[in-house]
C-alpha cells in the first residue's frame, strides 16, 4: 500500500483529535477534526519540544527515505502468537528484556535494518544509550502493546494497547474514547468532531520517538510508527504554536 493511498481513508475521519497544524504555506487546515497527514507536508514536521535547533530537513528526509525501505510485511510471525498478557510477564521486566536484547546484539541486526549505512551507527549508539525499543520492525509487537498516553490538562496518564490497532484511525478513535468521552458529563463531546467553531482542533496528537524527539502522529507509515513510538501526548494546539523552543512550526500560523 503506497503511502499516499494509505492516508486517503484517514483523511475522511471526523475526530476530536486533530493533527491540524498548518502546512508550509502557513494556512491552518480548516477541515474539522481531520488528521493532517504527511501528504499535507512536503517533509516531515518535527514537533521539537525538547529545545535545541530542529534537525535539518535533509536529515529528516534521509531518515524518511531510509525508513521507507524497511519492509513492513504486516508482522513476521514469532513462535508464540501475540496474545495480550501472555506469557505472563510484568511490563517492567518486559521492558528490561527489550533493552537487554538490543544492547546485546546490535551488530547481528544489521542485515535486518535496511536503513542507510550512515545512519546505522548513529542509531545504534542512540539506541543503546537510551534503551529504546528494538529496531527489527516487526518483532516484539507482542509486547510493544501498551504505551503511555498523556493529555494536557489531565493529571493521570493512560495506557493504550497499540497491538489492538492497525491504523491511525483506529488509534485516534480509541484515544478519543479514552480521554474525551469519560463517564457522565461529557455526552456533549460525542459530537465534538463537528463542533469545531474556529476550524482548528483543540488538540494535537504527538508522540515521542525512540530518539527522544517529539513528532506529529501520522507522519510515517503505521508500521514504522509502531517501531519508533515510545509514548504519546495529546497536546493543546495552542501550546504547540506558542512553543518557543526552536520548532519550525512556530512560523506556521
Amino acid at each position, binding site marked *: 500500500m503506497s503511502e499516499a493511498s494509505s492516508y486517503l481513508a484517514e483523511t475522511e475521519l471526523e475526530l476530536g483529535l486533530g493533527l491540524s497544524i498548518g502546512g508550509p504555506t502557513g494556512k491552518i487546515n480548516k477541515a474539522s477534526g481531520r488528521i493532517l497527514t504527511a501528504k499535507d507536508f512536503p517533509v516531515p514536521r518535527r514537533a521539537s519540544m525538547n529545545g535545541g535547533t530542529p534537525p535539518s530537513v535533509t536529515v529528516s528526509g534521509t531518515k524518511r527515505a531510509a525508513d521507507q525501505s524497511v519492509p513492513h510485511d504486516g508482522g513476521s510471525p*514469532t*513462535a508464540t502468537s501475540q496474545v*495480550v498478557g501472555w506469557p505472563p*510477564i*510484568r511490563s517492567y521486566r518486559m521492558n528490561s528484556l527489550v533493552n*537487554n536484547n538490543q544492547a546485546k546484539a546490535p551488530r547481528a541486526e544489521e542485515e535486518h535494518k535496511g536503513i542507510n549505512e550512515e545512519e546505522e551507527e548513529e542509531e545504534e549508539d542512540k539506541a543503546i544509550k537510551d534503551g529504546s525499543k528494538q529496531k527489527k520492525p516487526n518483532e*516484539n509487537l507482542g509486547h510493544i502493546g501498551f504505551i503511555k498516553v498523556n493529555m494536557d490538562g489531565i493529571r*493521570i496518564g493512560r495506557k493504550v494497547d497499540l497491538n489492538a490497532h492497525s491504523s491511525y484511525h483506529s488509534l485516534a478513535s480509541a484515544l478519543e474514547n479514552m480521554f474525551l468521552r469519560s463517564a457522565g458529563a461529557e455526552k456533549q463531546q460525542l459530537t465534538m468532531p463537528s463542533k469545531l467553531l474556529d476550524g482548528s482542533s483543540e488538540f494535537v496528537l504527538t508522540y515521542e520517538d525512540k530518539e527522544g524527539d517529539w513528532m506529529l502522529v501520522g507522519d510515517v507509515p503505521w508500521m514504522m510508527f509502531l517501531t519508533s513510538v515510545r509514548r504519546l501526548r495529546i497536546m493543546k494546539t495552542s501550546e504547540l504554536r506558542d512553543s518557543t523552543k526552536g520548532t519550525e512550526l512556530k512560523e506556521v500560523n
Partner: protein
Amino acid sequence: MHKKMAFSFPDEVLEHVFSFIQSDKDRNAVSMVCKSWYEIERWCRRKVFVGNCYAVSPRMVIRRFPEFRSIELKGKPHFADFNLVPDGWGGYVFPWIAEMAGAYPWLEEIRLKRMVVTDESLELIAKSFKNFKVLVLSSCEGFSTDGLAAIAASCKNLKELDLRDCEVDDLSAHWLSHFPETYTSLVSLNISCLGSDEASFSALERLVRRCTNLKTLRLNRAVPLDKIANILRHAPQLVEFGTGTYTADVRPDVYSDLAGVLSSCKELKSLSGFWDVIPDYLPAIYPVCSKLTSLNLSYATIQSPDLIKLVSHCPNLQRLLVLDYIEDSGLEVLASSCKDLQELRVFPSDPFGAEPNVSLTEQGLVAVSLGCPKLQSVLYFCRRMSNEALVTIARSRPNFTRFRLCIIEPKTADYLTLEPLDVGFGAIVQYCKDLRRLSLSGLLTDRVFEYIGTYAKKLEMLSVAFAGDSDLGLHHVLSGCESLRKLEIRDCPFGDKALLANAAKLETMRSLWISSCAVSFAACKLLGQKMPRLNVEVIDERGPPDSRPENCPVDKLYIYRSIAGPRFDMPPFVWTMDEDSGLRLS
C-alpha cells in the same frame, strides 16, 4: 438472659493477651468468639489488612477499628500485572487517604499493592500524618517524583520508603534532596523502579551517610557502578543491597574499590539489581556470597558459566531469582550447592523467540526439586514439560506451597507422549497437600480440574489460562476447592452453567476474574440480581454489553464480594450488575 462467665478477665487483660496475636486471620477469628471479644479486639487492632479495597469502604473500616496505626490495601486484580485490566479501571487510594487524614492523625504505616496513587495522595499523606513511618508501594502507579519529594520533605520520622515495581513519572532526580539535612531515620529505601535518568548522586551519598540505621538500600539503574563504592563505603551495616547498573569500563581501580567496599559489608544477606552485568565485575561480590540468603539476578544477562560460578559460592542461598540463562546445567549445580533453597524463580530471556535460545527445560526444575529439600516456592518459565517430570517433582517435593509453571506456548502437550498434562498437575495437587498457590499451563482438559477439585483442599489461589474443555472444569474447581480465595481465568471454554451453579461459593472467595471465556451477559445480570453481596463487574471496551444480544459473551468479568455495595468510581467501560441491572440497562 445474660449469663456472666464464671471467669471473666478485665478488658485490659484480654487486650494484653490479644496484643500477642498479630496475624490478621487470627485477629478475625478472635473477634468472632463473642460480642465482648469483638469489642475489645476492635479497639486494640493496630494493623488492618484490606485484601480488596472495594470490599469495604474507608468509613466502615474507620468505624470498626478506631485506633489502627497501619493499613494494607490491595486494589487491582492480579491480572492487571499483565495488562489485562484496562487502564482507568480503578483502585484509587485517594478516598482512603482523605478519610484517614481526618480520622487518624497518628497513622504510621501505609502499604499498597496495585493501586493508583497520585501526587495529591502523597502530599496529603505528608501533610496529615505527623508520625508517619512506613510507605510501601508495590506495583502502584499514577504518581511522580514530585509526590515523593513531598514525602521526603515532611515525614521527619520516615523509616521505610519502598517503591517496588512502581510506575513513577520521573520528573526530577532531585526529589532526594528534599530529605532535610537533619533527617536521619531512614532504615529502608527501595528506589529500584525509578527511571534511568541521571540520579542525584551527591544527595544520595549524603543521605546514606547520615542515616546510620540504614539496613536496606535498593538503587535504580541510573546509579553507575563506579558510584556504588562511594555509597556503600558509608553503609557497611547494610543487610540488603540492590546495585544500580553493573556495567562500566573494566578498570582495576573500580573493581578493587567495589570488592573492597563489599567485603566490609559484613551483614549483607541480600543482593539485587545487576542490570547490564559485565562478568568481569562479578567476582567482586564473591566475598559476600557465603552469607547471602537472597539473590536476585533476574535482570542480569550473564550466561550459564558465570552464573554457575556465582551460585556455587552461595551455599546459604534461600531465595534465587534468575533468567533462564542459567540453563539446566546451572540448575543442577544449584541443586547440589544450595541445600537451603526455598524459593526459585526462573524468568525467560527471550519469551517471544521462535526457537529456544537457551538449554533450559523441565530437567532443570526436576533437578532442583530432587536436590533441594526445603524448596517450597517455584515460578518457572520453560518451553516443554512432561507428565513424567511433573510426577517426579511432586513426589520428591511434597512440601511445595506455591507452584507456578508457565510453559510459554499455550496448550503445549507433554513433549514425550503428546498427551495433556492433566496427570502431571494432578500429581502436584495430590502430593503437595499444603499447596496454597498454583498456576497452570500447557495442554489441559477438564480432567486436571477434577484432580484439583478433589485434592487441592488448601489451595487459595489458582491461575488458569487456555485450559479445559467445558463448564465441568470450572465446576470441579468451584465445588471442590474449599480454601479457594482467588481464582483467575483467561481464554478457557467456561460459561454460564458452572458459574451460576456455584454462585454461593463466590461469596466465600475474595474475587474471581474471568476473561475471554464464554460467560454471557445474561448470566452476569442474573448473578448480579441474585447475589447482592457480590459486585459483578462487566469490563468491556467494545461498548455497553446491552448493545449486543444477551447471550453474547462478555469480554472480561470481575466478581468480588463486598459489603460496600457497587462502587461509584467506575470508568465508562465497566458496568456493575446489581439488583436493578435488569431495569437500569434496558
